[in-house]
């Protein structure tokens, strides 16, 4: 454990930036820890990593980690990341985004990044609510759940981020929860190694807002809820839609290595054209 802790410390701006802005019991710190373990296991040099985010509680993560970090505008992490990746294709580009940032204001960029299959790993932290602005309804808030802008219960049908990513053409798609930390590390590792657009959705707990507004204020109860409701994909396939109601299907939904990766195609074209142009 002691070695594990120091392993992670090497990746943190802990001298300068800690404590974080996150509430006690929030799931985002767990996911940051899982991501750092994945990076450490793969031995990716810190200089080669660009961590890019938009705005929100989850999007504060780049401030705390010792990579090339870009904390951008609300919803726009993906197009910023596309610029970084295309200008420096050798970099490992990771986007960390919340459900509001990634699927509401950034929803258009999300589907187009999936479509392009550009080699970026997106860690989508889904806590079903807007945390930073104080608990408003998100495009992932379940029907009937309460938020400060849905005081009588949410009537907006939520998105299923995994279904959306699959339909839009992402080539690595997985879902896990903050309870399943070993699984998170494995999925993030696989996503980082995958050549193409990878989405790892991690269901997370926001005890301060979602929890308090919906009768589960204790983060331990929220984690237990995740544990009890998570259904592995193989098992889910044998269950009926009624049985799956309110469940979190976890697992790897797609791992497609056939679809061409975008950056490679861009540079292939450049190689071809600059050759015929006399390498000018």
């Amino acid at each position: 454990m002691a070695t594990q802790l120091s392993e992670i410390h090497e990746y943190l701006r802990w001298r300068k930036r800690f404590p974080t802005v996150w509430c006690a019991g929030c799931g985002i710190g767990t996911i940051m820890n899982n991501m750092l373990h994945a990076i450490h296991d793969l031995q990716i040099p810190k200089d080669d990593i660009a961590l890019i985010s938009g705005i929100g509680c989850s999007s504060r993560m780049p401030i705390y980690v010792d990579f090339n970090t870009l904390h951008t505008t609300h919803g726009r992490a993906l197009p910023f990341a596309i610029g970084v990746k295309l200008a420096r294709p050798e970099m490992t580009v990771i986007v960390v985004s919340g459900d509001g940032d990634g699927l509401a204001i950034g929803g258009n960029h999300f589907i187009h990044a999936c479509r392009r299959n550009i080699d970026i790993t997106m860690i989508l932290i889904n806590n079903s609510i807007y945390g930073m602005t104080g608990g408003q309804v998100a495009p992932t808030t379940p029907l009937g759940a309460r938020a400060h802008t849905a005081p009588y219960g949410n009537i907006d049908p939520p998105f299923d981020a995994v279904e959306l990513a699959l339909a839009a053409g992402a080539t690595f798609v997985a879902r896990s929860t903050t309870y399943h930390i070993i699984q998170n590390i494995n999925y993030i590792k696989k996503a980082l190694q995958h050549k193409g657009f990878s989405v790892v959705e991690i269901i997370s707990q926001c005890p301060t807002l979602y929890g308090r507004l919906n009768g589960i204020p204790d983060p331990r109860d929220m984690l237990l809820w995740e544990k009890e409701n998570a259904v592995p994909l193989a098992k889910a396939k044998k269950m009926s839609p009624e049985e799956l109601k309110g469940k979190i299907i976890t697992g790897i939904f797609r791992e497609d290595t056939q679809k061409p990766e975008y950056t490679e195609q861009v540079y292939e074209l450049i190689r071809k054209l600059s050759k015929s142009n006399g390498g000018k």
Partner: protein
Amino acid sequence: MPLNRFTKDGHPIKFVQGNEAVVWGAIHAGCRFFAGYPITPSTEIAEGMARELPKVGGVFIQMEDEIGSIAAIIGASAAGAKAMTATSGPGFSLMQENIGYAYMTQLPIVIVDVQRGGPSTGLPTKLSQGDTMQARWGTHGDYTAVALAASSVQEAYEATIRAFNLACKLSTPVIVLLDELIGHMREKLVLKKPEEIHEEPRSFPTVPPEWYLPYDIPSDFIAHPSPFGEGYRYSITGLTHDRAGFPTSISAEITERLEALREKIVVHKQEIWDWKEYYTGDARILIVAYGSAARAARGAVEHLRRKRFKAGFLELKSIWPFPDGPLLSAAKHAKYVFVAENCMGQLIHPVKEALAGTHIRVVSVTRYDGHPLEPAQIVHAIKEEI
């Protein structure tokens, strides 16, 4: 008939639209990343970049919207590329938030706005200069803009090169204000030879990483955040930040940051200013204009001089920061200043502000029906007034 493709001293000649001149200007200035979204009347810039950039090793990407376009070029700039996007009014509006981001984070980018009639969808295929103020005040918060202008195809080429050099030198977004007329008309373009083009490089840190302060405030106020991947891991954020790049809410650090961002433009304003003067030496009547309106103003001043009016013309080739110094000197003998614009009157405001301490009468000459001002309208307005 084949065109003579070179000048006598060997400069390539082209007969192209202003939008294509922007493409050549960008390529010659070292632009190697373009992200854009189709919008009339700027689309030919995206098309030209898609055709030419890969040939010189650059990346072109058509994004899903204008917000994505400007985000992508800022990302590319953070990774060290010289990057540009091009758009028109509605797209320019969508880009405003991220223009502020590039300003705040001091990442050089170039944005070309080929203005069209507005507000809203307005007149997609007709000219306007109605974004003059949007270029200055479009993004939220206290912001100091840099914007250049051009009134010919040749100038569109040169302004684009200058925009890249200023963006890299000042580490800030630079806007090139064209309009539909300049973007779409065809004129002769004489290209520079590579050895004649000064290419301001992206700057890289000179100190070891452990001493590096990406957002330090040196005597010229310009921070040069290192391109990603060079071994200087640091934080870039649009939040108000300290010298290390981390968010701050300390009063002294907030005011210091905002002032440094403004000062870096203010202390370099003379380097940014660009203008041309016609008959200003003894001018009692001074016309001020830029872009398409400048073409009409040139005609008007020639006419007035032939009729023995002491008329002069100050053509602005940079708009923001407003060239008040050149205006004051050109208006030294003026009783009247006429501000000619293809919009309801925007440039007139900084002109009035600059001349506030004088007794000069400032008059607006405008046309906003999507057609260019004509010399006769300016001449007529002047004769009415004096």
